[in-house]
């Protein structure tokens, strides 16, 4: 089997959301002598991306996303033995995520957290209606490389700008990437307030986070 076919098999196994299928696909990829990092990135993670897109399109549901993430974890742990110590366990990066103060809409934000976590990031979800200072405190506490902020109302959107100002005041702005989202947010808005990125949905959020943190 050529490498591309193997990657496709790995990715399909993830999309099937079945742990056994993933473990078997990882085993055979290993036997073919493919590097663990490649198995993860071009096979398993590519499958996870596809799962994300299918979720956005209503073709797969949240429990499937979680099953796929669980299967991916099982696949990765199988590869740990072949990898430098801790390399497999190493998280992609630390992200603090929450819905800004005054806003209780958290369904979309939680989906974003779940997808980021499934993709291998360490996510600290602060919940909803989060006092703005809590974002700053958590960033300091966890040494986060990125903060995600959700706002679903035009009236709470300005909270995202305030956190950016607070980061500047506290000399943290250069250390953390800022990602904004929620239905009323746009790329325009992100540019206007000086955020590093905007994402329209959870799978895009994962792609943006990878671009900025890896």
């Amino acid at each position, binding site marked *: 089997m050529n490498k591309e076919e193997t990657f496709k098999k790995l990715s399909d196994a993830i999309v099937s959301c079945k742990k056994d299928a993933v473990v078997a696909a990882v085993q055979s990829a290993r036997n073919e002598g493919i590097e663990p990092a490649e198995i993860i990135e071009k096979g398993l993670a590519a499958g996870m991306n596809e799962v994300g897109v299918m979720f956005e399109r209503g*073709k797969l549901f*949240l429990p499937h996303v979680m099953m796929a993430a669980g299967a991916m974890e099982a696949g990765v742990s199988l590869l740990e033995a072949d990898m430098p110590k801790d390399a497999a366990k190493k998280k992609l990066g630390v992200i603090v995520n929450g819905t800004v103060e005054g806003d209780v809409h958290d369904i979309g934000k939680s989906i974003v957290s779940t997808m980021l976590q499934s993709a291998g990031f360490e996510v600290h979800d602060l919940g909803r209606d989060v006092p703005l200072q809590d974002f700053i405190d958590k960033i300091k506490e966890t040494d986060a490389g990125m903060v995600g902020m959700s706002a679903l109302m035009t009236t709470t959107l300005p909270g995202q700008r305030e956190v950016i100002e607070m980061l500047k005041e506290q000399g943290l702005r250069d250390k953390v990437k800022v990602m904004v989202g929620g239905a*009323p947010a746009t790329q325009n808005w992100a540019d206007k307030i000086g955020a590093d990125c905007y994402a*329209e949905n959870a799978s895009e959020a994962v792609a943006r986070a990878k671009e900025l943190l890896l």
Partner: protein
Amino acid sequence: MATEHMLRMGDGKRIFLTKEQILADLKEGMADAVDLGSIPELSGDELDKLLEIITMPARMVGVEPGKEVPVTHDISTIRLDGDQGNSGVGIPSSRLVGCMMHERAFGADSMELGHIDYSYKPVKPVVAQEMQAMEVCQQNMIIPLLYGAMPNMGLYYTPDGPFENPGDLMKAFKITEAQESMEHAAKHLTRDIVWIMQRMMSAGADGVNFDTIGAAGDGDLYASLHAIESLRKQYPDIYIEAGMAGELVLGLHGEMAYDGVTLAGLWPHQQAPLVAKAGANLFGPVVNTNTSKSFAWNLGRAVTFIKAAVKASPIPCHVNMGMGVGGIPMLETPTIDAVSRASKAMVEIAGVDGI
């Protein structure tokens, strides 16, 4: 230079596009709906008509004579005395005044009495007051007055309710527990809606409005369909309006079904027959506005989805038109240029029975 027409982005920003650009956006938006819903495209004539509506020179447009449709309003006086965050205009007024103003000054054809918290669960402790308000409104009004609120199943999860938050459980990979939590919440939600409506019906309500069904995913729809079914059995003449929260039923549970149909992942044209089957009289489909795309893109998409829903629906469809839905930009006070154009398009092209 080609003539440019003023329209808006989904976030309300003014933009200027040529006819060719508008048509291209209309087609792109339509294609997105066709792809997501596996539904038919609009015809060339319909696209031309959409283009004509968008480029009409007047700031505000209306339907052709004879094509007028009924309009239904939700949340009564909160539109008036709520603040901007509540989509209101901040004029102090009682609920009776709000309802009567809609009937006698604004031309509403049916109206809804709602509570400031606007979810069913918090109505329970104040149901006596709601019954009294309903009775007083009914004594003063002629148009059908429904009682309405949001099913809002999220209120049954921690920290607001008794059941463990499925979002937290999912993140901890406790998938079965998360699903069980949703099933428990759905049972309580159905029970509460029915209990509240039994009381409101005894106070003279003409019916019930389910506003933003599915806001908490497939479980929310499941609970609402069962409440509709139960109310229809108990009150054969009750008027039931079922409006959705969004275009897609989010699959948070993933396996809940009604009448053999899995609820997760349903689009408006698939939701309509189920809502009718449960016993509703009126379906309120929703299409979400994408704030990063133009009004033309959003309207092309929304009309394509709604046309398919109207076709599939055995009961009348009153499309949700307002801030951030139905192709209308997401602004606290949606602009009249966009609202009137989108409404005209929904009536004349999608064929909706009301708004």
